């Protein structure tokens, strides 16, 4: 009992620390530097500590200091409670949804079975959808509560977009669930041990559709008309500054990480190296004894998972900086008239194939 408690606390601290403490600031740096290198320029590289520049890695710290010392205001005539509440509602689901994503498999360490996921729910996938849809409230409340026409328009657009794409997102996943037969994310991960059983080979159309819907959920380009910088100044968070503004951004970055995690788990083999089964890995490290081999295999698997995660984060950043923005009615048309029918066809075809194979 105590061992399980310690294990849970260690896992929670690890994930929380890595996500909020490491990925959030680093993604700010990655966004600046990656977009800069893609655009033939150098990003921010001036913040230094005692003369050490370190290619701009101190800029997130400088940002944090700047943000914490800004004035925190609520605009005149705005609804004070909801104005303050909206960033929190936007940020919390982004942190929580990572709880069900497995970042490693089962290992036997010191006689104790360690399962590298914080909450191994039977309905893992539905948990992600349920909490993901709570983020809609944050955007809508932010748009409504600021006493500003532009924010209002941004909030309306955000509401419509996120609702439509949640429906589409749910339907695209059904194909994956049919193929793997379970909603439990650890089982889906374990079933992808064989390289040719990876989700990308079994459900290629589902991958593209789910990726699109996930980016639309996250309100990043090319679907960022809710915060379109050139049309609506800053959309639904025009009237925010300081820590609350940063909370919106952190929520966006953490959702990028979550989406990357979900994509890796469902489609790209979770924590497995290609063409390497668990048994091969354990026997490779057998020189360190049973406990040591498990620990080393755990490290290799966690490293693989994070490498794939970083690849998907990079891919989402590249897509953000390349593509122009959709218009509002085109986003709706894409969601309802193109993605929904294609996902239904996908379910139909998958169902037929599963029936024939089994």
């Amino acid at each position: 009992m105590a061992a399980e408690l310690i294990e849970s606390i260690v896992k929670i601290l690890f994930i929380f620390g890595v996500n909020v403490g490491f990925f959030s600031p680093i993604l700010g740096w990655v966004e600046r530097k990656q977009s800069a290198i893609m655009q033939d320029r150098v990003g921010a590289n001036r913040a230094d500590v005692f003369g050490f520049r370190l290619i701009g890695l101190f800029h997130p710290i400088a940002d944090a200091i700047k943000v914490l010392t800004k004035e925190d205001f609520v605009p005149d005539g705005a609804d004070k409670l909801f104005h303050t509440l909206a960033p929190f509602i936007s940020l919390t689901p982004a942190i929580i949804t990572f709880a069900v994503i497995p970042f490693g498999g089962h290992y036997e360490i010191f006689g104790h079975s360690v399962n590298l996921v914080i909450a191994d729910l039977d309905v893992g996938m539905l948990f992600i959808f349920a909490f993901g849809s709570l983020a809609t409230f944050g955007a809508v409340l932010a748009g409504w509560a600021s006493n500003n026409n532009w924010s209002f328009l941004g909030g309306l657009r955000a509401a419509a977009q996120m609702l439509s794409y949640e429906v589409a997102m749910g339907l695209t996943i059904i194909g994956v669930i049919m193929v793997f037969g379970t909603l439990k994310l650890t089982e889906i991960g374990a079933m992808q041990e064989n390289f040719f059983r990876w989700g990308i080979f079994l459900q290629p159309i589902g991958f593209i559709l789910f990726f699109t819907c996930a980016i639309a959920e996250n309100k990043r380009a090319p679907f960022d008309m809710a915060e379109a910088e050139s049309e609506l100044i800053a959309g639904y968070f025009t009237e925010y500054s300081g820590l609350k503004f940063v909370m919106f951004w952190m929520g966006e970055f953490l959702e990028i990480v979550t989406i990357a995690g979900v994509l890796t788990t469902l489609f790209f083999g979770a924590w497995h190296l290609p063409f390497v089964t668990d048994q091969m890995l354990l026997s490779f490290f057998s020189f360190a004894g049973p406990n040591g081999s498990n620990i080393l295999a755990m490290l290799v698997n966690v490293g693989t998972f994070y490498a794939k995660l970083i690849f998907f984060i990079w891919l989402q950043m590249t897509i953000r900086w390349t593509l122009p923005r959709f218009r509002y009615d085109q986003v709706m048309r894409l969601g309802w008239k193109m993605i929904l029918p294609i996902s239904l066809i996908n379910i139909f075809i998958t169902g037929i194939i599963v029936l024939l194979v089994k």
Partner: protein
Amino acid sequence: MADIDIKNNFSNVGIPLAKLKPLKVRKNINLTLWEKLYVFEIARGLAVTVRHFFVHLFGFVFPPKGQKRSIITVYYPEEKVTPPPAYRGRPVLIMRENGLEKCVACGLCEKICPAFAIRILPGERDNGERYPVSFTLDMSRCVYCGYCEEVCPKEAIIMSPEYEGLAVTDRRNLIYSKEKLLRSEESQKERIDYIRRIYSRCNQ
């Protein structure tokens, strides 16, 4: 529908068609199926930016020949851009060997300046030389057009290649007096050679 009157061979603004050489830009109006599915063209666009990404990422470690890095950005305070010889920077006054200015206060630069930035008060020295008692150039009005250099009959005011140091905290510091504008002839040698070359080729 392009307004071309084929029968009379004129376009609708009365210009013979053979003179204009039209080139239709849109070959096919409707999107092909390849373009209608978003994914393939988006993948092509992504290939362009990903290529730029990797070329510049490795350009930090393996720069192309002769350059420090493959990105064209100049890291400003550490590396500076050398402007070409034609560059018009800040106007400066040239001094002779004995430290006095070459300017004879003829007033041509004051008359030609389009921003009315120069004010000259002429005077005469004991040996009969004409000189400017006060020569003020208001840097907050100067537009760096180069007219003063062009009309000066004595090569006394030229546009130096300097472009830094104009950010001040008090606007009165921007009114440059004669002392602040003086430079020696060797320090501005390049610009003086250049203007001698170009202003001698004017009508030959």
